[in-house]
């Protein structure tokens, strides 16, 4: 709810003109009333209408500026005849009126050009720019006419009292935590300009191979094409640009030339997605970056957590090499301690903590004693599997004994393994266990099938079932049963969903007498992870969140201690790659300014990005015009069960070129332009 003077946003008709302040009707939307802590906004104008926050707005100038922004700043325009010339004419005519030189016929021409743009432009930006302009011309006709009839400039035409800040966005771009310029990279695919496609991705997402494979793609949930038929397969289309670079052995297509060194140094702790991303964008800005990593390998959980068959390491390494290519210095096998952090504060101009959440949480059952052999945390289990599969780093002898392994790799032949979880991590555990030759693999999950699909993906669940994982739903481990500290079996409780007689949410209740025992050799807890923050010196008293991660304001990613920043899972809690990337990209941008000016600032683009996310660009009720429904979403082929279950070959083939082009062709280029006047 926002208090506005006038609004046509998303079709609402709020008109408080002439009403007393306390009678003002409110807008239903989260409009950006405050631009930032220093300035309140005067107006907001965008693809779906216009909102005025005060009576003192020069609407003729506002319209002119919006048309100008479209002309001047929009990279998206210039690619179709109506948008290119139409946009210019809109601006020229509006400016003519605003200057006090307009004629009545100009109003007619404006409407005529607007209609052609709305009907025939290539992308939404050209189709929608006329919308708020027409709104203003309709609702404030008298102000336009005053300029024309009086041949006088609009009321603020010659004043420089207002800033006009514009931003290009799109529903999918807004929903992507890294705000990847999705329409641009899809356009690159459609135009067979794969280098452009990759450079568009890398503007905000350096891990193109990776996020083209294992991103849970929140963007697709807010793809506007959903309103017509099915969402675009956004994620996979990212692979074409990345593959083009890799297949032809080009150097790296960076989104911009690396700036010469500015003589500032930053330490990044952790070489996971967050650390890599932070390093990449800091390096592009000319900052010297040292990345410290505890493990012998780079990549964080995507390297040692996500298995080879989902994310081939040679592809991930390509993403990592792109970071190294900018001159980033990696220091592996080095666990950063509190003492080192104290030292870093002196040695570096800023520090980015990106240590993730690598401690597996307990399942909270009886007799859950870590010393019992066969009890093995998911993160450590996957570390051991991945280090061997991807890097040939074998299991050390002590761990081999500890986990009862017959050899120096994870060989589960003849063993039964149970995993407790329900998210991505647990899914990786059970599928790796199948590949490690386990006799029987069981997944215990408190809730039902639909929920596990929601938490992972349909494909992931379905593939696990195909490979022979046994899912026991509505179940939880009550007790671990051991003999001399060796795990023998589990006692499992069963639950049922009991509807709330008062119509509330159904609750899970234990079914008495339904508990049973299963014989197992291993129990892998994969319920969730927590952060190990021992590296933060206690005396710094860095603030934590209630779930024991590092606290920031979620905008500039600085911790409570100046110069120390945090991004990724250690800030947010266990989340996704793209979330880590988005946070670290923002942090890098803030840090690059901070190391030079000592101040924490956000760019106009970033401020607008946050405003738009709050407002939400995607409108699931919108009815789509100008596109033919019924063109199905492309699906890429996967290996058959027999081809995949005993090896680590990548399960998904990725799109054939034909599929990719057909899919790219479906994208509607839903670029929009929004502008705040403050």
């Amino acid at each position, binding site marked *: 709810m926002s208090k506005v003077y006038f609004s046509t946003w998303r079709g609402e008709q709020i008109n408080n003109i002439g009403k007393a302040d306390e009678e003002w009707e409110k807008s239903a939307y989260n409009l950006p009333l405050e631009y930032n802590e220093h300035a309140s906004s005067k107006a907001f104008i965008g693809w779906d209408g216009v909102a005025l926050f005060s009576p003192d707005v020069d609407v003729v100038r506002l319209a002119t500026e919006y048309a100008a922004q479209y002309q001047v700043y929009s990279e998206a325009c210039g690619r179709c005849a*109506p948008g290119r010339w139409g946009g210019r004419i809109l601006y020229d005519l509006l400016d003519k009126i605003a200057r006090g030189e307009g004629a009545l016929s100009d109003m007619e021409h404006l409407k005529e*050009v607007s209609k052609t743009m709305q009907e025939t432009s290539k992308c939404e930006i050209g189709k929608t720019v006329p919308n708020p302009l027409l709104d203003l011309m309709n609702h404030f006709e008298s102000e336009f006419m005053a300029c024309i009839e009086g041949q006088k400039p609009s009321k603020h035409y010659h004043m420089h009292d207002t800033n006009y800040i514009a931003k290009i966005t799109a529903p999918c771009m807004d929903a992507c935590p890294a705000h990847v310029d999705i329409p641009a990279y899809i356009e690159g695919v459609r135009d067979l300009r794969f280098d452009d496609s990759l450079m568009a991705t890398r503007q905000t997402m350096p891990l193109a191979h990776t996020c083209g494979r294992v991103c849970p793609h929140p963007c697709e949930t807010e793809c506007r094409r959903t309103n017509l038929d099915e969402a675009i397969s956004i994620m996979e289309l990212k692979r074409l640009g990345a593959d083009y670079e890799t297949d032809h052995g080009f150097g790296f297509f960076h989104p911009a030339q690396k700036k010469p060194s500015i003589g500032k140094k930053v330490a990044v702790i952790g070489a996971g997605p967050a650390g890599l991303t932070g390093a990449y964008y800091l390096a592009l800005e000319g900052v010297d970056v040292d990345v410290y990593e505890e493990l012998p390998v780079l990549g964080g959980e995507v390297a040692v957590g996500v298995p080879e068959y989902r994310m081939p390491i040679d592809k991930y390494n390509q993403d990592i090499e792109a970071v190294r290519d900018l001159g980033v210095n990696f220091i592996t096998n080095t666990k950063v301690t509190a003492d080192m952090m104290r030292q870093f504060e002196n040695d570096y101009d800023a520090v980015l903590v990106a240590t993730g959440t690598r401690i597996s949480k307990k399942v909270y059952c009886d007799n859950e004693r870590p010393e019992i052999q066969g009890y093995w945390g998911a993160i450590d289990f996957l570390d051991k599997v991945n280090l061997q599969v991807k890097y040939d780093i074998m299991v050390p002898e002590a761990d081999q004994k500890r986990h009862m392994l017959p050899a120096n790799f994870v060989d589960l032949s003849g063993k039964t393994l149970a995993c407790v979880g329900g998210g991505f991590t647990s899914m990786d555990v059970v599928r790796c266990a199948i590949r490690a030759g386990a006799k029987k693999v069981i997944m215990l999950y408190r809730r039902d099938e639909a929920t596990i699909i929601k938490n992972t993906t349909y494909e992931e669940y379905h593939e696990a079932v195909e490979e022979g994982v046994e899912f026991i739903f509505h179940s939880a481990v009550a007790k671990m049963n051991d003999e001399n500290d060796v795990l023998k079996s589990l006692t499992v409780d069963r639950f049922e969903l009991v509807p709330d007689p008062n119509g509330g949410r159904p609750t899970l209740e234990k079914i008495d007498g339904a508990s049973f025992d299963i014989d197992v050799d291993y129990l892998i807890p994969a319920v969730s992870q927590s952060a190990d923050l021992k590296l933060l010196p206690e005396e710094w008293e860095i603030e934590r969140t209630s779930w024991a991660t590092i606290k920031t304001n979620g905008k500039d990613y600085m911790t409570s201690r100046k110069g120390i920043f945090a991004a990724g899972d250690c800030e947010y809690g266990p989340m996704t790659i793209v979330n880590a990337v988005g946070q670290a990209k923002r942090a890098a941008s803030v840090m690059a300014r901070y190391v030079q000016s000592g101040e924490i600032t956000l760019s106009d683009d970033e401020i607008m990005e946050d405003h738009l996310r709050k407002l939400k660009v995607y409108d699931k009720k919108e009815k789509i015009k100008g596109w033919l429904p019924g*063109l199905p979403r492309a699906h890429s082929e996967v290996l058959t069960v027999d081809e995949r279950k005993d090896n680590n070959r990548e399960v998904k*083939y990725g799109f054939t070129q034909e599929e990719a082009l057909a899919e790219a062709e479906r994208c509607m280029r839903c670029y929009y332009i929004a502008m705040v006047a403050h």
Partner: protein
Amino acid sequence: MINFTINGQPVTAQKGETILQAARKAGFYIPTMCYLEKTTPCASCRLCVVETDKTDGFILSCQTPPTEGLSVTIDSENLKAERTNIMRLYDVNHPLECGVCDKSGACDLQNKTLEFGVSAQHFSAKEQHRTIEHWGLINYDPSLCILCEKCVHVCNEIIGDDAIELQFGGYKSSVVPKNSEKLDCTFCGECIAVCPVGALVSSDFQYSANAWELTQIPATCAHCSAGCSLVYEVRHTSNALGAKPKIYRVTNDFEHATLCGAGRFGFDFGSEGAKDEAELARAVDAIQEHKAIRFSSLITNEEAYILQKLKESAGIKLYNEEARAYQDFMKAYGSISGKKSTGGSIDAVAKSDGVIVFGGRIATDNPALRYAMTTAARHNGAKVVYMHPLEDALLQNVVTQYVKYEVGTEEGVAAMLAKTLLKEADVSEETRRYFDDLDEGYLCAESNVGDEEFERISKTFARTKRKTLIIGSDLLSHGRAQNIARLCAMIEAYTDFSVVVAAPSVNTVGVSLICDLDADGANVKAVGYNAHGVYTMGSFGNVQLRLPALNSQEGTFVSINHQVLPTNVAVAFEGYTLNDVASRLGVSSANTIDYTAQLPVSSGFSGSEFDALGNFYGPLGEDRRGYVLENVDVEADGELEEVEDLPEFNGTVVYRCNPVNQFNAYTAQSRQLEKDTALRGSAQFAAAAKIANGDKIRVEFGSGSEERMFVLDGEMKGTVALVPSYDGAYGAANDRYRFEKVKISRVGSEV
């Protein structure tokens, strides 16, 4: 198959076809300004909008495939109104100075403006000042550019240079060279061809003639074996002052065909002649005396047939080493495949999703094959394996696996390649044993190609569906050419690969199918026809008897597609023809093209008369040029031979290959084409040969020597240098194996 309707009439579309494509096939007209059949849709002009019963608002017909049962309207009043408005926008600030524009008369903007009845400038915007760019053979005028993006699409998707891009800036957008200040490209000129207005023009042609003064002569390009279709545009203004008809430019049916720069800009190679009885008599005497003719493959089928008849009737020996090598190669090939010709074509390459190139510098040897590979790579995501001792930078954005082998080891590589691709094939036990018995360790070590490289090829091709193998001309003249041919034939015979051979010269294929060739030797005396000899005739250099060049002749060629392609006279030739010479030797007919119908049926020719041959593409791109040879059966009695010891090439080695757009004495004569005659090598080569950039050097070959400049090429690696052959200083590229050990000495240095 999708059934839908256009304006109420039933229409069907294939899977993947757009509404526009289906409409055109069914004969409906939807206006477009940015559509180019051979590229992905540019989707910039928006004129192709249509209405349907399932959509709100207009949709784009050029990028939307129809859905079952859709009902499409292509010409409502609404559509007309918006299309007219778009045309009005196009005309905003487009300088109405058509009188001085090259495109006038053939301009899409002019035509569409008329079609939609747009008159005065309805809308206006502030003028902007823009300067004309001069990019060598091409001029670009941004104020005429309608930003349709056709040029950008064709350069990236078909040519592969990816040399230009759109600089976005709304109203100020323009076409700019990509990643460089000035245009640095292979100057194919295809961007000029596709430009619908006069924004991109040939700098040579600009202001020289009006479109309507030119006569169009459809012909076949006379520079390489691809046999591209082109149109010579000739002004026939013979005036009192004796001005002669002249070719002003070359154009092409760019919707369906593509030309390289040689075809487009290298048209002025004609020679003039006069009828000198005495010279003709000397030519006839010379032939009678030496009883031998040496000729190049810059020759029509009909002329080759005349030579063959001379051989048959007068016992004249025929020498053409390059065609003989091709002939022998194909004979050996056929002894395994059981067919006279290979089964592939340039078009098959363009449609494939997996290509292997083996033994040739394809991008410059045969640009049409390069464009087909670019098309395959971009449009089909084709995997392209390039096997050659030298990497080629022109192909970097096409090649996905480069396999470098040692010079001379082609036979070993062919054996390993065949073994790799035939792994799953149903071959005879004997063949299986042959491959099992190969000494892989030796072959891999000597050729320097690891088994993992073959393993990768095997994996790549396991998932491709339409595969082609391009055989380069290095293999044709290799000492072990015939066994290589047999190994390659195995691949075509026992797998789903189709094979195309990049024959070295314009009509190598035709000559090889028509003539019985004799083995030439170092001191053999013969009359030269466009080749060296004791007496010379032909159309280049200082020949004694002038005969018409290939742009002054009618007749046919056989392209590497095994297509018999007609060509026509662009400018008439006043002197004698080979037919006149032959008449004096007892082989006579009224016109050379009388022989078209007599071309040997046993080689697959159809017996068609010349006048029955078409020379154009149908409106939907149907190839109506000449006809395709029948692939005649031959006896499959060949056997694979043991791979011989692989030779070593140490010391200074050069590779005969031409710079971009250069092929032969014709292109060497052409005014607009760049003539780089330097020997190019890497720093490593320079060090080994003890020469430096800019040095004048003497290169001693087995059969002679020549002087050239040395240019140190920073992009090159390795110890093999490139030596051009088009300038004729050293004869044709393919008389012998293209790599050769030479002696290089420094003669002086360039100031």
